[in-house]
């Protein structure tokens, strides 16, 4: 006998797929296929053996490796302190460590420009600065949950403190270390804004090479082939890192009360904390110092109007946040409602634009979005690109909570008389609302600081703050330089405000459902 109830329940599940799937398909998969077709047609893959391209590829790989190793070396002492000890001001230290990670790449680039000359050293330092938070967060999360008694047991069995750490703690930390290293490697591999600013045009990652081939030389087939190559690299890296991540999901003990550092430990902890914070704040001070004299917001040219750029950035950020929130919530709902293979594939698919590299997204837009209507001449591409790159953050924020809602709660609401739409409004929405706001905040941050994709699709009338900073940095004269730095300070401040709000929302989030 037909049962309409069961069928209508499933109906509500498939329509939420449509919008996110169309969004991802049109703005990401379709451009990628167009790029692939375009470069194959032009036979551009053969051109990838040019010495110039090879040297960019080689630089991309080795700088990412060295940056990763340096980041680990710099971050491990701080991670140890933060996950093994309790001390006054610890949460403040943790928050300060996170700030570099959420700073827009252009701001980080500008900050290091105020600190040291362009070159390899500046690029590596900026990458370390940017990524320390990744290690502190991912490795610290595991480290603080490793039972201290394990090391104690090793000590009782005759191991020296170092030996105990090496033979017990280190092996348990290894998966987390590798996982963090993979993420840092990926970020450095796909680094664009920082390298473009600090590399001075001579040092190029594949991302920068794509930009120069497309924008400076107009060689679109080679740029497309490079974008496909970049995509392949990134997919491999993502796959490897997700495999490691799975190993990190071993459940250790709950976070236990941490001891205060005692005696000589206290001195070591103080030294590590002050040294780390000192080094991390150096670029920020350099940025602020260099911005003196740049606070007159006069516009040297129509497309260089700082106030207009700030207005544009705010507007695009609002639009992108709304789009990303709607798409992200629908997608999270679709993924949470089903445990099938398709849903996990969809999950990965939505993550891809984030991992792929913003440059590929921007370039793909430029190449493909002339169908069915030519969007390339409009400024709509900027918020669309931002929304695409920001959606994963909303999905990531909402998904765990949606998954944690027991199906029984929705059923209980239905039995009590709530229609399917009402169940969503009364049960799901209130439970995920806060998480969605956190996701929306992250989306706004992503949009405000986005540079890679924007640099391809931006038009004189749609200049954003990051793209304007980049332009000003490229102009001769100290006035432009100071103005760029001042704008970078403004951008950093806007970002910091949103991050602080997010942090508060997150802190209040209590309990799981």
């Amino acid at each position, binding site marked *: 006998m037909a049962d309409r*109830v069961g069928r209508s329940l499933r109906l509500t599940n498939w329509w939420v797929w449509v919008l996110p799937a169309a969004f991802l398909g049109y703005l990401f998969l379709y451009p990628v296929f167009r790029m692939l077709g375009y470069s194959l047609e032009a036979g551009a893959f053969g051109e990838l053996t040019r010495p110039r391209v090879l040297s960019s590829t080689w630089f991309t790989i080795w700088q990412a490796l060295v940056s990763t190793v340096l980041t680990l070396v710099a971050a491990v002492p701080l991670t140890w302190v933060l996950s093994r000890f309790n001390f006054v001001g610890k949460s403040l230290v943790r928050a300060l460590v996170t700030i570099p990670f959420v700073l827009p790449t252009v701001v980080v680039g500008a900050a290091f420009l105020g600190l040291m000359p362009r070159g390899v050293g500046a690029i590596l330092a900026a990458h370390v600065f940017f990524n320390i938070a990744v290690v502190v967060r991912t490795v610290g999360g595991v480290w603080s949950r490793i039972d201290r008694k394990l090391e104690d047991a090793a000590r009782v069995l005759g191991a020296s403190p170092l030996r105990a750490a090496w033979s017990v703690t280190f092996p348990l930390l290894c998966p987390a270390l590798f996982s963090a290293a993979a993420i840092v490697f990926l970020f450095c591999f796909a680094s664009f804004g920082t390298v473009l600013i600090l590399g001075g045009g001579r040092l190029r990652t594949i991302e920068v090479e794509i930009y120069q081939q497309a924008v400076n030389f107009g060689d679109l087939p080679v740029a497309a082939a490079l974008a496909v190559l970049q995509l392949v690299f990134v997919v491999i890296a993502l796959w490897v890192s997700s495999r490691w991540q799975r190993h990190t999901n071993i459940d250790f003990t709950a976070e236990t009360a941490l001891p205060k550092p005692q005696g000589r430990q206290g001195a070591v902890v103080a030294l590590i904390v002050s040294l780390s914070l000192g080094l991390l704040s150096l670029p920020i001070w350099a940025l602020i110092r260099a911005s003196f004299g740049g606070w007159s917001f006069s516009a040297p040219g129509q497309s260089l109007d700082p106030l207009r750029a700030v207005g544009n950035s705010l507007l695009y950020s609002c639009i992108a946040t709304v789009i990303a929130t709607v798409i992200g919530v629908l997608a999270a709902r679709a993924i949470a409602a089903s445990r099938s293979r398709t849903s996990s594939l969809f999950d990965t698919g939505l993550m891809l634009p984030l991992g792929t590299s913003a440059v590929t997204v921007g370039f793909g837009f430029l190449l493909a979005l002339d169908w069915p209507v030519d969007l390339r001449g409009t400024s709509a591409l900027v918020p669309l690109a931002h929304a695409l790159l920001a959606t994963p953050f909303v999905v990531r924020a909402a998904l765990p909570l949606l998954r944690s809602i*027991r199906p029984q*709660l929705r059923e209980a609401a239905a039995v009590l008389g709530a229609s399917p739409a009402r169940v969503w409004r009364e049960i799901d929405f209130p439970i995920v609302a806060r998480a969605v706001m956190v996701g929306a905040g992250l989306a706004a941050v992503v949009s405000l600081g986005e540079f890679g994709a924007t640099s391809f699709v931006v038009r004189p009338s749609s200049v954003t703050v990051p793209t304007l900073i980049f332009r000003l940095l490229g102009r001769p004269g100290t006035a432009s330089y100071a103005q760029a730095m001042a704008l970078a300070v403004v951008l950093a401040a806007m970002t910091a405000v949103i991050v602080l709000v997010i942090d508060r929302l997150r802190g209040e989030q209590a309990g799981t459902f």
Partner: protein
Amino acid sequence: MLQVEEVAVRFGDKLALDQASLEVGSGETIALLGPSGSGKSTLLRAIAGLERLEGGRIMFEGADLSRIPTHLRRFGLMFQGYALFPHLTVAQNIAFGLRMHGLDESRATEALAMVGLSDLASRSVDRLSGGEQQRVALARTLVTEPRLVMLDEPVGALDRQLRRRLIAEMRELLDGRCVIYVTHDHDEARSIADRVALLHEGRVVQTGTYDELLAEPASPWVSGFLAG
């Protein structure tokens, strides 16, 4: 009042309900008794409209329910584990069904008093003891005056002393209503229900008063099960 006619529900390649039939009269309390995995909860979910029927039909007051979605059936179901809404307070939990049906929400206050929890009205439900949670769930189920009350092991998670007290309380509250009461505890079934329906591997194998079942078991399995 309620007629379940040869209902089948499938989970994958296993039939959770296999031609299960049951009748509940007006004002009657019937206990569904059976070992775990026999399909007791699934039968309640099917009656509530939460499971897709592969065969058979469910009638209430002479009307076929198959085209009526869960939220319009106006039945009460108290879930095993209670399924209290964690983002709502005690009072909001109880008022939820009243709100959905557009009924007078002040009845929630009376219901709270009825289960003796007036002091806890604004408390968050995850800060309640097991016994308190049970009462909130019961009040939430009964406050809308559902046409049929279904209780899925309503005291299963509580200790023995508390169980005995709550069963006595519940007997009063359920008096005169049309009730299906799921349990795997023989004494509980005997003390609370007018009749007992015995479930085994997705089928209702025998119905009658507990003493009738004891006196004339329909099969060796029934006598074995009742003997404990």
